[in-house]
């Protein structure tokens, strides 16, 4: 394993993760007001109504697929009787369908963003960078799957990439497992790391506040004005006198 591999597969993941976590903490503390989806539905909804659900539901399935493929060890799935072939079939079929939905949705959304005047005007440079990274990551991921399974004879990433992914979280990064993976998988992982590093500073933050609590909270919310009467607690050094 050379120095480049160490940098890419044993150092960069921690840099990306650190920025991801601390970035979100910082953003949440400093910029709650900017924490929004910044929806453009007001300007245009015909294309959005097709593209957005297609993309979002697609990417949610893709996310679940990544959890299944990267987080759950091969030995576990085999222990419950899901063999390599069955897993592979399910992963490829589900992954391809979800991947194609995601790509199609993203294509519609990007087309919409570029061609619909008001939507394009409301697009910041930050958004453009985010879109480029997101599209690149998704394209590389789909390409890796397609190339490995359709053109090649299939690649069992669960013996190389997945253990590497988990080893990062055990704090014993096994970079050499990743260094041997096909180039498209490595590029996909690299692009994802960059995406995770810019994530907290883009509109992607809305993912972390997906409103699942809505399912259980009471419909009508009451709040006392005393909690936060249009203000926040005084900053350090600005506490009023006569108060311990």
């Amino acid at each position: 394993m050379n120095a480049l591999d160490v940098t890419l597969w044993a150092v960069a993941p921690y840099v990306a993760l650190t920025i991801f976590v601390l970035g979100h903490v910082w953003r949440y503390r400093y910029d709650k007001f900017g924490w929004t989806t910044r929806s453009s539905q007001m300007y245009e909804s015909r294309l959005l109504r097709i593209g957005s659900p297609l993309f979002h539901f697609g990417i949610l399935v893709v996310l679940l697929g990544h959890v299944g493929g990267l987080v759950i060890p091969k030995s576990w799935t085999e222990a419950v009787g899901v063999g390599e072939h069955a897993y592979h079939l399910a992963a490829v079929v589900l992954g391809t369908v979800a991947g194609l939905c995601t790509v199609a949705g993203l294509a519609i959304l990007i087309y919409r963003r570029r061609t619909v005047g008001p939507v394009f005007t409301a697009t910041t440079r930050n958004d453009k960078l985010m879109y480029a990274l997101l599209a690149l990551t998704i394209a590389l991921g789909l390409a890796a799957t397609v190339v490995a399974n359709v053109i090649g004879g299939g690649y069992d990433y669960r013996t190389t990439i997945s253990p590497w992914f988990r080893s990062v979280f055990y704090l014993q990064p096994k970079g050499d497992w990743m260094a041997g993976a096909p180039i498209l998988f490595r590029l996909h992982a690299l692009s994802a790391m960059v995406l995770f590093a810019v994530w907290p500073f883009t509109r992607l933050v809305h993912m972390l506040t997906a409103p699942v609590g809505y399912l259980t909270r009471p419909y009508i919310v009451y709040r006392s004005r005393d909690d936060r009467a249009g203000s926040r607690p005084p900053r350090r050094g600005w506490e009023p006198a006569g108060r311990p």
Partner: protein
Amino acid sequence: MRVMAQLAMVMNLDKCIGCHTCSVTCKQAWTNRAGTEYVWFNNVETRPGQGYPRTYQDQDKWKGGWELNRRGRLRLRAGGRLKKLLTIFANPLMPSIGDYYEPWTYDYDRLFSAPVTEDTPVARPRSLITGEPTKIKWSANWDDDLAGAPELAPADPVLRKLSDQVKLEFEQAFMFYLPRICEHCLNPSCVASCPSGAMYKRSEDGIVLVDQDRCRGWRMCVTGCPYKKVYFNHRTGKAEKCTFCYPRVEVGIPTVCSETCVGRLRYIGLVLYDADRVAEAASTPDEKALYEAQKSVMLDPRDPEVIAAARASGIPEDWLEAAANSPIHKLIFDYGVALPLHPEYRTMPMVWYIPPLSPMVDVLRETGHDGERAGNLFGAIDALRIPVGYLAELFSAGDPEPVRAVLRRLAAMRSYMRGINLAGERDESIPAAVGLKGDQIEEMYRLLAIAPYGERYVIPKAHAEEGARLEELATGCSLDYDGGPGMGGPFGEASGPPAPVAVENFHALRERQVADDLDRADELRGRVNLLNWDGKGTPDGLFPKRKDKS
């Protein structure tokens, strides 16, 4: 019984001249910002007309408010929690900018920069959404004063509920203005629709607000509100709505729309209600019974039992006193002339209206009758099916009886007071015919016609003992202007914690507004900047001058 206090408003439609002063001053105060160009927290619509946004009252289309499910329980019309989350990626029921209108400005610079030619330069309209030259096709009050009514008014959802024959006559018969703000409902469907839990009803005064820090821009509140009074700021990606001018009412001064109303038609006061009974009342099966159901939730502030329960729930004494003197309670209960707007949406709205009698008077006068005689007016109210039907669709879910009862009382007031003023006689048969007493009619006349400031607005101050904490701190960055280097994403104007509302300014404003003499205005100019004060002596203006002892 869980007693809660609610700040409520009543608008007397007879006095509205459709001048839009309330809308304009509200816009200047609250929505003159990028992203809210199309937003009017207060708007005035001509009725019959399509309203703003267009046809918002058509709940078959927009699905705002609540409905009863098969088991008779309340359910959001646009769908329950799961459906909301499943449609979160593209809300199918959200109005587009075209349903409101595309805001615009003019190319004013052309007037100065155009070269000298024979033709006068023209400032062309430019869309504030795209920045491109645009054609102005609609606005928040495009059909003002029935402009284009033959074409536009038939699309009025309220009118469409009446029969065809009624429609035609109606368009010839009468028109009135309907000023609208957020209803600050007791059972707010916008709050219930918010997936993030960012919207809330303040437990002290019932004002419905959006927590800008918690709003994530899912846009479900816009759909949930049947009055379409929650707006999406397309620049910041957050929901915004009428705040009942909370920084003003907290220090006891009326909202901007009320303060500037030239017709003096708005009333603000407290209402006490039983929060435990709201859901039950809102699920009343018969839509036409909802008006009475909502009245039954509101409590009598002079009832000792209610007062004891209110004290138990921590409502301060001065608030109880304000509730007892509330013009809102008088108009709804003592005089029985105020009605809620669209009770059939089951949100229990808290901005009520006194329906207009003047259209009836006009019709009578045009047909050569004495439009102010009690007998004629009572007859007209019973006979003029169309205006009453239309008002009933607005204010009592289509039941004409409450509207008739209100109009009769207003008619009785007119002719009784005319008798006093012209003939000097009190015809007690007139008030008796509408179930009131002569002195009640005179009190009502005082409140409705003379409408003294102190009686129109009975607003208790919020208990802001921590007020000092809220004082303005210079937290803004001078580079954060629109389009400036500080703009965009987590780093610009739309970033960082919001600057606190300067309560001190509002206190100063109140001082000025309730002062009897003009001189006091100068006094505020002499304030001292403490940063420049060397700490020696007490310069003029360091303390506000003492009010006169008298």
